[in-house]
């Protein structure tokens, strides 16, 4: 059975690591997410609790993969 060898890791690869924006920008993103949720709830299209549970569980599940 033939197989392609895995690419070797090089220290220079670390230089391409993506960087998060500043704290202020991140706080603004959270505020926008909260405002959208507030708007949805006030417009009478509130997300049902079981759907919220599924959303939270899905995000937690995928994120748990990154738990060391």
């Amino acid at each position, binding site marked *: 059975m033939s197989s392609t060898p895995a690419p070797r890791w090089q220290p220079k690869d670390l230089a391409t690591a993506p960087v998060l924006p500043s704290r202020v920008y991140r706080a603004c993103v959270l505020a926008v997410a*909260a405002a959208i949720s507030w708007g949805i709830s006030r417009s009478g299209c509130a997300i049902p*609790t079981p759907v919220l549970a599924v959303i939270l569980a*899905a995000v*937690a599940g995928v994120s748990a993969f990154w*738990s060391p």
Partner: protein
Amino acid sequence: MVNTIIPMVHGDGYHKKGIGSEAKAHLATAALGGALVGLVLWGVSRLVGISGRLPASRALWFGAALIALLYALREAGICTLPFPICRRQVPRSWSKRFSPNMASMLYGFCLGVGLFTRVTVATFYVAILVVLTLRTPVEAAIAMSVFGIGRALPLLFLERHKPDRRLAIVLSWWTPFVRMANGMILAHCGIALLTSALGFG
């Protein structure tokens, strides 16, 4: 986790097409473990009188909303907050002690259960609080099985990558972005829970 479980669920065929039986078993048992926890949580909730009772559910939604909004700041890296983490991890020795299929299933089940393994995002604990307020066992089982599936799914996408130091580094690059996404979801769901708790929704 990456270096132990990826070789287990994909065997030596990193470059073969399709998902192997070990990977399928891992995914199925992860969903099963999650569903089992959902049923246990629903049973506990029913026993203490939360499930199906609006005043108790509203109190729990309010608590979950406060935790979600507070820990959204932590996940986004804006502030630091204390966070209880279970230090236990699935034992690496299972990969040697059991057959690949059995070990994949055991790893899948334990990771799908989630409660006694290391989960570093607050979203998981907020999800548990919300599951406690669900009315039916089916809803609770589905919600928590989605956690198990979500936890096993990235492994299936990594089937073509041999686990090495480079893969671990590339995955670690994305950790801040994963945390930020958790922060956004927590902020969104926190407000949704708050409006439900206060009766605005």
